[in-house]
């Protein structure tokens, strides 16, 4: 088992091995802090540092998600001339919209978050 894992590891490209080692180290350090020094200043500093890195990664990932998912749909909507927010300065005699009752009926609808 171990030899098969070692062989698999050896076949990985160098940068993947470095990243994997880094990730394992982070997990081990975290576990060690939780086990041996959960209230220490060092753990507090470690947590802050990891959270800062996490915030950067979250921003990067969300930026990609935003560009890849929201962007194309938005472009499509703009090409179709659809405004999901109905922001046009209409001259309708009323801007009241009918309240649409949920087709499931009140009780069934209440069981859902939509």
């Amino acid at each position, binding site marked *: 088992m171990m030899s098969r894992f070692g062989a698999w590891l050896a076949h990985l490209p160098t940068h993947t091995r470095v990243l994997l080692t880094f990730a394992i180290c982070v997990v081990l350090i975290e576990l060690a802090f939780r086990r041996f020094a959960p209230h220490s200043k060092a753990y507090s500093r470690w947590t802050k540092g990891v959270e800062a890195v996490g915030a950067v990664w979250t921003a990067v990932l969300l930026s990609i998600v935003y560009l890849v998912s929201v962007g194309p749909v938005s472009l499509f909507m703009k090409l179709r001339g659809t405004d999901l927010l109905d922001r046009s300065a209409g001259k309708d005699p009323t801007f009241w919209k009918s*309240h649409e009752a949920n087709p499931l009926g009140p009780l069934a609808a209440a069981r859902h978050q939509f």
Partner: protein
Amino acid sequence: MNVLGISCFYHDSAAALLRDGVVVAACQEERLSRKKHDQSFPARAVKYVLKEAGIGPGDLDAVGFYDKPLLKFERMLSTYIATFPRSFGSFRKAMPVWIKEKLWVPAIIRKELRPYKGPILFAEHHMSHAASCFFVSPFDEAAILTVDGVGEWATASFGVGKGSDITLFKEIRFPHSLGLLYSAFTYYLGFKVNSAEYKVMGLAPYGKPVHFDRIMNEIVHLNEDGSFKLNMKYFSYDYGLTMTDGRFSEFFGGPPRKPETWMTEREFDIAASIQKVCEEIVLRMARYIHRESGLTRLCMAGGVALNCVANGRVIRETPFKELFVQPAAGDAGGAVGVAHYVYNSLGKQPRGPAWTHAYLGPDYDDAEIRQYLDGQGAKYRVLADDELVRETARLIAGGNVIGWFQGRMEFGPRALGGRSILADPRDAKMRDTLNIKIKFREGFRPFAPSVLADKASEWFDIDCDSPYMLLVAQVREGKRCIPSVTHVDNSARLQTVTREASPLYYDLIREFERLTGVPVIINTSFNVRGEPIVCTPHDAYLCFMRTNMDHLALGHCLLDKKELPPLREDVDWRTLFELD
């Protein structure tokens, strides 16, 4: 049948417990967590309401949540799509919170309410508001108007309530929102959004509505029926992290006012203008709803229903003969609303008695209070009810400022004689004293009067009750000897007090009247700026000791500041509360 209502994850989270159609307890999380407008899951409030009912989570029959998170999420995604790429900042800030928390409401509720296994039911945001005002109102049948910032898609809705049923007919949808319009001006005037809208209302009488026509011509397209659309090119709340953008600033000839800086006539006039716009919209909506429903009773809820100046005009200037406004009209009231919706509308159960007061929070008996005070080494006198009333009234008439902590805490944003600071309204300097030395807040802000209900129409231009301090009326001309509660336009946001709802408080005002001939006292919330209203004897004692109040009536214990040892604190308490 026990139903728990929960509202949270936007602002002012709260919990309410309904037993057989009657609200046993309701409490905002901020009062217990001591974090103003706390939006987190109301774990402390839930614990409290369950304790008050003497049950555990396993004894609940149903749990209601005050809105539909997935519909809200849909609205947010639609907004990001419609405003791409400007919505990037908002997307990046909001998504982690949604992914981590807001999309998992049922799981969070189940985790917090272990071992509860029953149903979790969701009501639409505006249905929760509608239920929160109609089911606790004294009306069998009434028109309902709910107006706030935004729920799922709706920003305002109207309907009719009859018996145990509520039907919503029409709505106005995001981004066109009266609540957000008002908040945008709140932001522009340098105040905190979702918190300080009432300051704009208080500022308005100092100015002239010189921008009213310009706003109506350019920013708000208002129809006769009260429906409206906003010209979104002036706003950035749909895509950004602020409420208004450069065009808005250009329109009003300058950038937003920086918080805590001086205010000029310009700010006064802008506040007066948006207040007039708000009133105009609400009045037109109310008249339209009257025409459509043919009813003469109206129930209102939603954050905009806390605009008591507009409420006062609704009752005076529309065909509605009676008005009921939910005392916790904002999102906190949604907890009560969804609980009632689950019990009455979905459960088809008959309605319980109408609310006569809003004292639904924690209370502390004399033994607990004395134990706490003894622990602090505080000197106090224990007085019987009649002695307490006589002594407190005498102190108020003598120009003292009193912390008044009695019975159960109020539910909603107003202090109504349960957790109040009381003073003499005849003293013209009292307003400045209270604002600057006790509340540590802006000098322009007015104070509200509590008046004996049977004397209200004698002193104020009002012919109905205002038990929850949600109506503004003019002080009558011959009665303008109460300058500290009379605003610059001679108006006052009054609370009418009845003996049935609040016997001790009523007797206190009655005694004050006997001493002075004035059946009115100043009633302001027991807190300092940025602090939630006090909840426990500990909160009250700290607030009392940190400020320049003279006496504290804590249950039957009366404390004199001069006889108390100074408070020893390691930190400057002013840094504990973020300014609102």
